[in-house]
C-alpha cells in the first residue's frame, strides 16, 4: 500500500523518514524513539478519521510477516497540523489492525475471521456507541426503580392495565415480556451490561494501549510555526533555551533538550490513568459475574441456645456454586443480647457464636454484631436482625414455662412482640388470659384478662407480679438472632477492582502538560498544552516564564544579566 504524504509538511523530519527503507531507526536523531507529532495522542480519539495503511518494507516479505511495519495516518479537523504519522514497530498486534502479512498468503477462513474480528473491534470501540450504551443502561436502571420489582404478575395486571395504559402505551405485556419485573437480572439489562463490557475491552485494546506507546515517546517540534499554534504560546526575546529547561526542571517537568529543540512534560500518569480506570471496571464486572454465578446465600433466625448446620441454610445462586468442606460446620448460638441507649432504644445487638466441626469440636468462637461479621472457611456470618423467641415464666411457682412470642408489629428496629397466657379453661371458645408485650429484651409489659395494664417487669429482676390471682415471675426473655450467611468467591476480585478504580480515578485527575520550545536566534519560542487543567496552565506558564533570565550581551563576552524578563 502506498503511504499518503502529509498535507502540511510542517515537520520536515517526518518527510525524511517516510521514504526510508528501514523507517524505524532514523540516523539523524541520536535518540532511539521515533519522531512523530504528539497531536496524534489527541487525534487517536477520533477514530472516524483514521486511515489505516501498511507499509511493507523489503524485510517483511523475507521474514514472512514476523515483523510488519504499519503506519496509521490520522486526520483531524481541530488543530492546524492535520496529519500525524505514527510508526509502530509491531510484533503482533497493535492499533486498529493486526493483520500480519502472512495471512494474505494463507488466505481463506482465517483471513476472513480476522477481518471480521477487526471490523467488530472497530465497531465496538466506537465512542458514540459506548455513550449510547451507557445512556441505555442508565435509563433501564431508572425504569427499574420506578417499576416495582419482584411482584407477582397480578400486580402488574392491576397497575399497568391494557385498557388505559400508562403513558398511552405501557401495559403489563411490556413489563413481563421484557423482564422489567426483575429488571436487574433480566436478559435485556444483562445484555446491555455485557455489551458495555465488550466495548470497554475493545476500547482498551484498540485506543488506550497504543496511547501508552505514543505518550511515552518524546517528540520534538522543529518549526516555530507549529509551536506558535499551540494553546498557549509565547516568545521570549533574548533568552536561552537552557535556562528555560532548568526552570522547567525546577518546576517538576521532565525536560529533554536536543540542539535547539526542547520538549518537557509533566503528569504523564494523568494521561495513562484512564486505561487503569477501564481495566478496573472490567475487573469489577468479572468479579460481579463471579459473585452472581458462584455464591451461596441464606438467612436464618436462631433462638438463643439452638444450633443449625451451615449447609442446611445456604442455597446456591448460580451454576458455578460449589459447596465446600466448611458447609458441614454446626453453629451454636450461645447467647444473644442487646445494648441499649439511655433513652431505651436499641444501640447494638450481639450474638455469641461457637462453630463446631463434624466431630463436635469447637473450631471457633466469636461474638458478632452489626458491622462486625464472622469469617470462617470462606463463609461469612452477618448479624442482621433480631427477634424475641420466647418468654420463660413461672406461674404460681410452677414451671418454668416457655411461652412463644409472636411478632405483632415490625418497623425497622422498632418491633413489638407479644404472647398470651390463658387463664381458666383452655378449651373454652372465648378463653381469656394474661397478655405480655415486649419491645425489646429489657422489659415486659403485662396486661390482665380484661386487657387492663397490670405492670412492667424486667426479666432479670425476678420480681413477681400478681395478676388475676396468679403470681407470675418472668425469668427470662429469650431472644433469637437473625443471621445472614454468605459465601462469595468474587469478593477478592471485586475488592481489587474497587481499590484500583479509586486509585486510578484519583490519578486521572492529574493534568498532562506538554511544552515545546525552540531557540530561534536569540529568542525562544515556547508553546504548550494541557489536557485537563486548562485554566491554571497559562497562569502557571506565565509565572514560570517570568523567571527566565534575560540575556544582555556585552561586546566581548556573554554576560547573563539576571534581570527578569516579563
Amino acid at each position, binding site marked *: 500500500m502506498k503511504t499518503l504524504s502529509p498535507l502540511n509538511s510542517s515537520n520536515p523530519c517526518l518527510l525524511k523518514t517516510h521514504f526510508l527503507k528501514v523507517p524505524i531507526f532514523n540516523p539523524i536523531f541520536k535518540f532511539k524513539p521515533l519522531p512523530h507529532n504528539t497531536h496524534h495522542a*489527541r487525534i487517536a*480519539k*477520533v477514530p472516524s478519521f483514521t486511515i489505516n495503511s501498511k507499509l511493507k518494507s523489503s524485510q517483511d516479505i523475507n521474514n514472512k510477516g514476523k515483523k510488519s511495519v504499519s503506519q496509521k495516518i490520522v486526520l483531524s*479537523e*481541530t*488543530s*492546524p497540523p492535520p496529519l500525524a504519522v505514527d510508526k509502530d514497530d509491531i510484533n503482533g498486534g497493535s492499533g486498529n489492525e493486526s493483520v500480519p502479512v502472512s495471512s494474505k498468503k494463507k488466505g481463506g477462513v482465517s483471513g476472513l475471521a480476522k477481518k471480521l474480528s477487526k471490523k467488530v473491534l472497530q465497531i465496538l470501540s466506537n*465512542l458514540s456507541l*459506548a*455513550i449510547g450504551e*451507557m*445512556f441505555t*443502561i*442508565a435509563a433501564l*436502571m*431508572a425504569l*427499574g*426503580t420506578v417499576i416495582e*420489582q419482584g411482584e407477582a404478575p397480578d400486580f402488574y395486571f392491576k397497575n399497568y392495565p391494557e385498557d388505559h395504559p400508562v403513558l398511552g402505551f405501557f401495559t403489563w405485556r411490556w413489563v413481563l415480556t421484557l423482564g422489567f419485573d426483575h429488571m*436487574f437480572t433480566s436478559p435485556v439489562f444483562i445484555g446491555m451490561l455485557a455489551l458495555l463490557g465488550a466495548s470497554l475491552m475493545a476500547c482498551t485494546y484498540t485506543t488506550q494501549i497504543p496511547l501508552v506507546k505514543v505518550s511515552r515517546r518524546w517528540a520534538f517540534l522543529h518549526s516555530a510555526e507549529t509551536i*506558535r*499554534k*499551540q*494553546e498557549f*504560546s509565547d516568545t521570549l526575546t533574548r533568552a536561552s533555551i537552557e535556562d528555560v529547561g532548568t526552570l522547567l526542571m525546577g518546576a517538576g517537568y521532565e525536560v529533554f533538550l536536543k540542539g535547539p529543540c526542547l520538549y518537557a512534560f509533566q503528569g504523564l500518569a494523568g494521561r495513562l490513568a484512564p486505561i487503569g480506570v477501564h481495566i478496573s471496571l472490567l475487573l469489577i464486572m468479572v468479579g*460481579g459475574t463471579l459473585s452472581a454465578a458462584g455464591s451461596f*446465600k441464606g438467612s436464618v433466625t436462631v433462638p438463643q441456645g439452638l444450633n443449625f448446620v451451615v449447609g442446611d441454610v445456604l442455597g446456591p445462586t448460580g451454576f458455578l456454586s460449589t459447596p465446600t468442606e466448611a458447609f458441614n460446620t454446626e453453629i451454636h448460638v450461645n447467647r444473644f443480647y442487646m445494648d441499649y*441507649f439511655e*433513652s431505651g*432504644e*436499641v*444501640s*447494638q*445487638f450481639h450474638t455469641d457464636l461457637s462453630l463446631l466441626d463434624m466431630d463436635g469440636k469447637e473450631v471457633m468462637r466469636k461474638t458478632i*454484631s*452489626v*458491622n462486625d*461479621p464472622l469469617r470462617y472457611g470462606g463463609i*461469612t456470618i*452477618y448479624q*442482621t436482625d433480631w427477634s424475641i423467641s420466647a418468654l420463660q415464666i413461672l406461674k404460681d411457682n410452677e414451671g418454668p414455662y416457655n411461652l412463644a412470642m409472636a411478632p405483632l408489629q415490625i418497623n*425497622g*428496629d422498632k418491633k413489638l412482640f407479644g404472647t398470651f397466657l390463658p387463664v381458666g379453661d383452655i378449651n373454652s371458645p372465648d378463653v381469656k388470659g394474661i397478655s405480655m408485650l415486649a419491645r425489646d429484651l429489657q422489659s415486659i409489659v403485662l396486661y390482665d384478662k380484661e386487657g387492663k395494664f397490670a405492670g412492667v417487669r424486667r426479666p432479670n429482676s425476678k420480681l413477681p407480679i400478681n395478676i388475676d390471682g396468679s403470681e407470675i415471675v418472668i425469668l427470662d426473655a429469650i431472644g433469637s438472632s437473625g443471621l*445472614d*450467611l*454468605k459465601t*462469595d468467591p468474587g*469478593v477478592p476480585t471485586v*475488592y481489587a477492582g*474497587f481499590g484500583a*478504580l*479509586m486509585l486510578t*480515578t*484519583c490519578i486521572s*485527575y492529574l493534568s498532562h502538560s506538554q511544552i515545546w520550545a525552540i531557540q530561534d536566534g536569540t529568542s525562544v519560542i515556547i508553546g504548550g498544552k494541557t489536557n*485537563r*487543567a*486548562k*485554566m*491554571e496552565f497559562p497562569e502557571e506558564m506565565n509565572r514560570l516564564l517570568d523567571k527566565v533570565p534575560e540575556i544582555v550581551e556585552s561586546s566581548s563576552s556573554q554576560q547573563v544579566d539576571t534581570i527578569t524578563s516579563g
Partner: protein
Amino acid sequence: MIFSTLEHILTHISFSVVSIVISTHLITLLVNEILGFHDLSKNGMIISFFCITGLLITRWILSGHLPFSDLYESFIFLSWGFSIFHIVFCFKKHKNDLSAIIAPSVIFTQGFATLGVLTEIHQSAILVPALQSHWLMMHVSMMIFGYAALLCGSLLSVGILVITFGEVIQILGKRNNLYFLIESFSFVEIQYMNRNERNNVFQKTFFSSSRNYYRSQFIQQLDRWSYRIISLGFLFLTIGILSGAVWANEAWGSYWNWDPKETWAFITWTIFAIYLHTRKNTKFESVNSSIAASPGFLIIWICYLGINLLGIGLHSYGSFTSN
C-alpha cells in the same frame, strides 16, 4: 444547653450573612459594579463558612458522633461542602465568578434544612446499629462532597446552555440563511482562534463584534470551570459509591443490592461518565457536554432527596417518614 443555643446562633448568623452576600450580588447585577462590595461578598462567604463549620462541630460534640445520621445533618454538610468549594476556588483564582452559583446554593440548602419540613429533627438523634461503623465517615462525606461539586458543575453547564441557546438555535434552525451561516462561522472561528492564536484574534475576524468575542471567552471559561469541577466531583462520587459498597458488604453481606438509592447513585455516576466521554470528541465539546451534564442536576436531587422521600429500601433512615 449551651451547645444548642450556640447552634441556634450560628445557624442564624450564617443564614443572614449568606443572604446579605446574595443581595449584594443582585445589586451589583442591577446597578453598576460597586467596588467595595467585591471584598464584602468574599468576606461574607468566609464568615458563613466558619459559621457552618462551627455549627457542624457543635452538633458533633453534642451528639458524640459525626453529624451524618439524618437528612438535616447531611443538608448542613452539603451547604458546608458548597462553601468549601467556594473558598478553595476563590483563593486559587482570586476571582468570584463562581459565587453567583455557589452562594444561592448554600443558602437554599441551608434554608431548606433549617426552615423546611425537617423542624422536628433538629435535635441530634442517636445512630442506629447499622450506622455505627467507621465507614460512615468516609462514605457519607465523600458522597456529599461529590454531590456538591457535581451540582455546581451541572449548574455551570446549564448556564453555558442558556448562554449558547441563541447561537444553537441560529445554527440549527437557519442553516440556509447566509447571514446566520457567517455568524455561526465567526462563532466557530473565534473558538478556534482562541485556542491557537490568542494574539492575532482581532486581525482575522470580519464579522465578529466584541460582544461575540467576550461571550465566547466567557463560555470557554465556564466550560473549563465546569469540566474541572465535575471531574473533581466525579472522583468524590466514585470513592463514595465504592466505599458504600464495601461497607454494605461488611454490614449486610452483599456489596450491591440494586437498592433504589444505590441504583440512582450509579445512574448519576453514569451520566457524568457520559459527560466526561463527550468531551473526548472535541468538535462542539462545550455544547455537547453541557447537554450531557444538565440533566445531572435533576438526577442528583432525585438521588439525594427523592429516594428519601419515598422512604423505601435500605437507606430508609434518611427519610422523612422514619423517625
